[in-house]
């Protein structure tokens, strides 16, 4: 054992540069993995906090009336911080503006809500002023809409207040709350002074909780539900809000896990290719050791020890570098970052990355090392008969081990076995395709390259592809896999960013109009167009209630404790629409969307949102009866739809076909996209003047929150992809550099026989160009397939295919290969042959 370690150490002395190359791949792979893991955890926490800011608390309890004293007393015993909010709908009167009136939400806060996120006002200290006396904080749009100034007076109920500032943003607002009317904040005492609290029917009370670290809001919610029964309370937790945020955050984490997987796999490819070349150079030494009495196991162990320590060293340095990158880069780039990340080192991520990196590295090192076991001592006296070409049964086991480890790592990284298995299978497909391509190239180079018609340097370069000891398999595999993995990232990044921009981007509707009567919609469209902000969406709304569900009266189902159907789905008033086609924010997942039926149809085909269908436990063909303002309408489920609720567009649980509801009393909902608060105010003022009964809801503030989250998401994706692509480029260069050692002797020999530097360069250029192009094209094709599969199955979004990005990336891979090849061989052609030979042996 002692000899093995001693020999491994001594033998490494002259090969440190080459071992450093092997190690470099591991270092960068693990650095990327650790950096991604740790930064990912940081971002997860940041996004978590951002998500918390959507709620403003850990748990919020809402009631449609005042909390009973006992409930309030109980709330105050909950550990952590507590805040109470009362809100009611009232009119605000602007005496300085000709006593104009506006329906608003009047609110009062007690406690330090919001606990997460920031209440943004102009001036910044407005809220403190409001709490101190007779002041009001008004939503910015009201100030713009009515031309009210800070310092003006407003009247609410029986009270008169001075406008202290404008409200720009408050966390904890859901779109539904903000939709009804703009917000006005008063102090709790001021609210009592208005006399509005006497009209309890219009009041909403909220209790906000900030819980100590480690407290599970869901558990507290459960406890509260048990303790406070019969009060019809609504609970909201961050987890629920996160679910509302939808698929997008999941996409980011999936992408991060993909990046981590790719980074380490790139490192593994680098390790395997560098080690392959290293081991080939050690064959003579192994043969001598075998002659001197070393067993196959001893010889193998010597290089395994080297491989293991390269892995350990790479893992440690990689982990340190990963931590450094994670800590340093955001600091260096802080001026360019769209947000601030509170940095911490995620030791769990560091341990996971280091360990996974080490295991994968050692396994990939074993692959080339198996050759050592088969080196015959005869090689010491005769080179021709030294290699055992019979298949090595251990190799099959090792392949199986690598497949298991890679799949296991992929599953660990992805968090879902289906996704992990998909990653691993795609990797296997890539490996198989490239290996097949390498064999094909070797065969074709031998079979089809013309022996006479081409110049010598071309023939020599092409012959290098098939001659003994060629690098075709090694380079095609390493370059091809590198290109494949990197391009997959580049393409997936585009796909994902396109998806996010589609949801969070700048051209969505952000000003909505409600309660538009039949005869007002045309006038509204004209007003919007004249303002330069034409209607981008409109939908008729017919209110209805569900009376029968699959033949059972809704009341009966409600009373059935075993039904498992949430009460709200049966009690609520549905605001449904009718239209002839699907909107771009929905798609049919089952059945067929029917856009029109003949009037008088006995059973109407209706499309239902799939989440609601699940809650109502209904399937295609099930029959429902609606009460459409006194008229029963029988419908059957013709299709299920998936709706992107995050896209703030008119969407509905039930969509009827044209030809049924046209005669029913209805209102319209319409939406426009405004570019600025001023544009929004201008249109709202015009509509307020000409069509005063129409309500407007400005979604700009809500969208702002979404946009800020999505811009962070986009940044993370770009940063991580860029870091891993750099790793890939280094692995590509490393693969070419290690391949250099295989050709060095014959290059020197050709030089000795009189080959000019130009001739040598041409030979290399031909070989590297063919290999680089084939690897890049095959890798590119694999990446296109990989991106398509990821888009279809993981991100569930249309594929974004950018031929320019693909062409540019393929060209870049070829340039990196050829340039590295030529640069690294420069040393060989510039020095006397003997000097090179002495250094390289």
């Amino acid at each position, binding site marked *: 054992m*002692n*000899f093995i370690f*001693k*020999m491994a150490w*001594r*033998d*490494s*002395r*002259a*090969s440190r540069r080459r071992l450093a190359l092997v190690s470099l791949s591991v270092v960068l792979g693990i650095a990327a993995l650790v950096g991604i893991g740790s930064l990912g955890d940081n971002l997860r926490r940041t996004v978590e906090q951002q998500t918390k800011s959507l709620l403003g608390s850990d748990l919020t309890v809402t009631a449609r009336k005042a909390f009973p004293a006992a409930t309030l007393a109980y709330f105050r015993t909950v550990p952590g911080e507590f805040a109470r909010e009362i809100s009611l709908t009232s009119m605000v009167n602007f005496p300085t503006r000709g006593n104009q009136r506006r329906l608003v939400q009047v609110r009062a806060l007690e406690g330090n809500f919001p606990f997460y996120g920031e209440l943004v006002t102009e001036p910044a200290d407005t809220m403190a002023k409001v709490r101190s006396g007779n002041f009001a904080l008004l939503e910015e749009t009201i100030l713009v809409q009515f031309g009210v100034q800070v310092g003006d007076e407003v009247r609410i109920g029986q009270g008169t207040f001075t406008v202290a500032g404008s409200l720009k943003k408050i966390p904890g607002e859901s779109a539904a709350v903000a939709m009804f009317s703009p917000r006005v904040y008063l102090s709790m005492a001021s609210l009592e002074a208005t006399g509005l609290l006497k009209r309890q029917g219009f009041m909403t009370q909220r209790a906000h909780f900030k819980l100590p670290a480690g407290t599970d809001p869901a558990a507290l919610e459960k406890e509260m539900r048990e303790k406070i029964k019969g009060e019809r309370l609504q609970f909201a937790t961050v987890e629920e809000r996160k679910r509302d945020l939808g698929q997008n955050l999941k996409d980011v984490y999936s992408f991060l896990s993909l990046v981590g997987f790719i980074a380490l796999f790139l490192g593994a490819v680098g390790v395997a290719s560098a080690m392959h070349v290293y081991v080939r150079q050690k064959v*003579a*030494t192994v*043969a*001598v*050791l*075998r*002659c*001197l*009495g*070393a*067993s*196959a*196991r*001893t010889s193998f162990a010597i290089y395994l020890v080297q491989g293991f320590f390269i892995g350990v060293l790479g893992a440690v340095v990689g982990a340190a570098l990963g931590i450094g990158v994670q800590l340093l880069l955001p600091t260096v780039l802080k001026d360019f970052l769209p947000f601030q990340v509170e940095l911490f080192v995620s030791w769990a991520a560091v341990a996971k990355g280091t360990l996974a990196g080490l295991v994968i590295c050692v396994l990939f090192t074993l692959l080339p090392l198996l050759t050592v076991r088969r080196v*015959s*001592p*005869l090689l*010491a*006296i*005769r080179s021709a*008969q030294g290699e055992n070409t019979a298949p090595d049964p251990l190799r099959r086991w090792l392949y199986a081990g690598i497949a298991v480890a890679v799949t296991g790592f992929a599953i660990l990284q992805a968090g879902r076995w289906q996704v992990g298995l998909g990653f691993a299978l795609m990797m296997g497909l890539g490996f198989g395709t490239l290996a097949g391509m390498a064999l094909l190239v070797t065969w074709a180079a031998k079979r089809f390259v013309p022996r006479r018609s081409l110049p010598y340097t071309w023939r020599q370069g092409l012959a290098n592809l098939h001659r003994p000891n060629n690098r075709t398999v090694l380079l095609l595999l390493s370059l091809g896999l590198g290109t494949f993995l990197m391009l997959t990232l580049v393409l997936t990044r585009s796909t994902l960013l396109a998806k996010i921009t589609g949801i969070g981007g700048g051209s969505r509707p952000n000003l909505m109009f409600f309660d538009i009567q039949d005869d007002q919609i045309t006038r509204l469209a004209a007003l919007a167009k004249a303002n330069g902000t034409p209607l981008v969406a409109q939908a008729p709304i017919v209110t209805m209630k569900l009376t029968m569900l699959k033949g059972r009266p809704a009341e009966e189902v409600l009373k059935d404790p075993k039904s498992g159907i949430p009460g709200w789905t049966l009690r609520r008033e549905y605001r449904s629409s009718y239209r002839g086609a699907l909107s771009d924010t929905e798609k049919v997942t089952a059945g067929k969307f029917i856009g029109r039926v003949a009037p008088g149809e006995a059973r109407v085909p209706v499309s239902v949102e799939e989440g609601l269908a699940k809650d109502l436990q209904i399937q295609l063909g099930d029959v429902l009866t609606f009460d459409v303002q006194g008229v029963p309408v029988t419908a059957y489920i013709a299709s299920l739809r998936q709706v992107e609720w995050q896209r703030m567009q008119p969407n509905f649980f039930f969509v009827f076909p044209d030809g049924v509801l046209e005669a029913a009393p209805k209102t319209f909902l319409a939406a426009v996209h405004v570019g600025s608060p001023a544009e929004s105010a201008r249109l709202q003022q015009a509509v307020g003047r000409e069509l005063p009964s129409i309500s407007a809801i400005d979604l700009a503030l809500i969208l702002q929150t979404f946009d800020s989250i999505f811009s962070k998401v986009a940044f993370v994706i770009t940063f991580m992809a860029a870091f891993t692509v750099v790793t890939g480029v280094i692995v590509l260069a490393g693969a070419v550099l290690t391949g250099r050692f295989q050709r060095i002797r014959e290059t020197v020999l050709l030089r000795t026989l009189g080959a000019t530097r130009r001739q040598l360069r041409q030979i290399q250029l031909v070989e590297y160009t063919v290999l680089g192009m084939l690897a890049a094209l095959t890798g590119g094709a694999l990446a296109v397939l990989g991106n398509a599969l990821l888009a279809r199955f993981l991100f569930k979004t249309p594929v974004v295919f950018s031929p320019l990005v693909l062409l540019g990336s393929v060209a870049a891979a070829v340039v990196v290969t050829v340039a590295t090849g030529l640069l690294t061989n420069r040393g060989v052609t510039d020095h006397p042959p003997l000097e090179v030979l*002495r250094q390289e*042996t």
Partner: protein
Amino acid sequence: MSEQTMLKVERLTKTYRTAGGPLTVLHEVSFVLPAGSSVAVVGPSGSGKTTLLGLCAGLDRPSSGSVTLANEPIGALDEDARALVRNRHVGFVFQNFQLIPTLTALENVLVPVELRGEAGREAEARELLARVGLGERCDHYPVQLSGGEQQRTALARAFINRPKILFCDEPTGNLDGDTAAAMVELIFGLNRERGTTLVLVTHDLELARRCQRIIRLKTGAVVSDQTVAA
């Protein structure tokens, strides 16, 4: 096999499978070497000299026939067991020196004993290097040594494990006349001092005649086996 016999070769045949059919490079070769004797195997290129040396030293397995080395029949042993026999009983000197490039001269010499797990033999290794005239070059790497110096290092390495038998494959083939002569003196000198059996494969008849016996090979068969007159 008597206790005095170091190497016994019986009807040794080696056949390689090639694309053009089987190729027999050694055909039913038999001889016996007493301990402490020296033999030269000579013959033209392709006569099977190196193949014979490889089989006798346990570097390869015969297609048929047997080799008994230091009373151990090595033909039936697996590769690791043969490695053990080589480590215990055999020393090598190769035409192309075959020093491990990453080890210093001293470390190269120590490899066979370290492989056995023996420690504390450094002084002996230094002494051996001094004996071959390289006492000042212990810490030099092969690339820093001349061809003759590399071969002398290889000789020191061959003797460090006190081998019972020394196989030399064209030991002077890569050396100039003077260096080769000095090398020959060293080989025979050490051989005498330590009572080692010597098997020498060479083209050089002058060198062959310094052995007690000369076996001539031609196309894989023994054509003569003569004792050299003292």
